[in-house]
């Protein structure tokens, strides 16, 4: 479990980091919190020529609110996402946070790194999708703003171009009629999700509208279950559960069959939809099966 040989640089500015990435091309990899990347290096699943450490770049961490948007800097540690501002404005994120690995990982890993890596079994990408977030990236020439809907393209694959760095994630502040739901099932608390669901909606006299159901751990990327959401809005929970069969593509692995994950996705959908519909927006705290 020793990493292969590589060069390392810790640039003191975003421009310097972008210049290094431009100069070294695909041989260079940005290093954020390192909680996935250093694991991959130690296991020799990855062998970059250069690590460009983003930890000394000023201004990339922190949470702020302006004009109806909460902006979370990419280098904000998972733990530091849990500010009073996020708990009040973005309770979905606050609910997801304790499910991310373990305290020592949350102390070091970053939201930007998690989003850029796009592991399909992790919480932040699904939260971005459910909350309609915008991923802000900076390249050597220009900045881009990419809707979460267009960002997560496949297994560890995003809309990031070579040489670009995620600098922030922006979340619209939900309105007064907004509700949310979050549920994750894993074998032990902190393990990767067998299945998880992050959801947002508006709730009125006629029920839920604008429901966004972002599943994770059940495909090669976080998935917005559009048909299931439409069925829930129409009051058809059974139809929504049936629709998941078309919308999700759960992986088969040696300990959990795809059919099991699909079943669990339906269980999770039932719980989350009931809570969002019936008024309690607090998470029940199901950490295991």
């Amino acid at each position, binding site marked *: 479990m020793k990493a*292969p040989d590589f060069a*390392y640089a810790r640039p003191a500015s975003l421009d310097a980091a972008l210049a290094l990435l431009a100069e070294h091309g695909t041989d260079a990899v940005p290093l954020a919190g*390192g909680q996935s990347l250093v*694991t991959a290096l130690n296991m020799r699943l990855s062998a970059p020529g250069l690590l460009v450490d983003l*930890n000394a770049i000023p201004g990339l961490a922190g949470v702020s609110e302006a004009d109806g948007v909460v902006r979370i800097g990419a280098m904000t540690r998972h733990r530091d996402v849990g500010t009073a501002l996020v708990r009040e404005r973005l309770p979905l994120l606050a609910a997801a946070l304790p499910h991310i690995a373990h305290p*020592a990982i949350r102390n*070091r890993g970053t939201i930007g790194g998690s989003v850029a890596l796009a592991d399909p079994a992790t919480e932040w990408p699904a939260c971005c999708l459910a909350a309609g977030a915008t991923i802000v990236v900076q390249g050597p020439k220009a900045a881009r703003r990419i809707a979460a809907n267009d960002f997560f393209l496949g297994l560890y694959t995003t809309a990031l171009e070579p040489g670009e760095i995620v600098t922030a994630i922006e979340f619209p502040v939900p309105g007064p009629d907004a509700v949310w739901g979050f549920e994750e099932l894993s074998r032990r608390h902190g393990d990767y999700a067998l299945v998880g669901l992050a959801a947002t909606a508006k709730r009125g006299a006629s029920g839920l509208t604008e429901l966004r159901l972002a599943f994770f751990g059940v495909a090669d990327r976080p998935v917005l279950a559009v048909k299931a959401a439409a069925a829930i809005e129409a009051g058809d929970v059974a139809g929504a559960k049936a629709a998941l069969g078309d919308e999700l593509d759960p992986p088969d692995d040696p300990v959990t069959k795809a059919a099991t994950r699909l079943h669990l996705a339906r269980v999770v959908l039932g719980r989350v939809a009931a809570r969002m519909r019936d008024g309690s927006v607090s998470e029940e705290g199901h950490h295991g099966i």
Partner: protein
Amino acid sequence: MASESPDREHAVAFTLNGESVRTRVPSRMHLGDLLRGSFGLTGVHLGCEHGVCGACTILVDGRAVRSCLILGVQADGATVETVEGLTESGRIKDLQDAFHTRNALQCGYCTPGMLVTAAELLADEEACSSRDDIRAAISGNYCRCTGYHAIVDAIAATAEARREAAK
């Protein structure tokens, strides 16, 4: 600042268990190996070296982190504390006594990581209010001997004793 240019080895200077230290470290070497190899701090136990077992947990700038998932070169400028430093300072003497009294270890391999993780938890009174909190906090530290109950007992007893002492 040092290390701004790419290199396969870098000079680092940091505070280690209260003392200023300097050394050179290959870029590929993780902090756990640096602490053990260059400074003899063998209380940093390396179990899995990919972030799963928690035995190598140390404090960096006051926060519990996996020393196998931080590069040695990233310690530059940081304040690093290992179980040796926490022990010498006396900050966790009550916790260590509670582990001893309650048989919260058998082989002892996980113990340094458990102590460091618990030290961070105990510093935040609000986060350590229930046994569930304690179980969640040590969920990233594997113990294959005790079944965890005695460890939770020891941490809960320490938290309670500190609360009583603060009254």
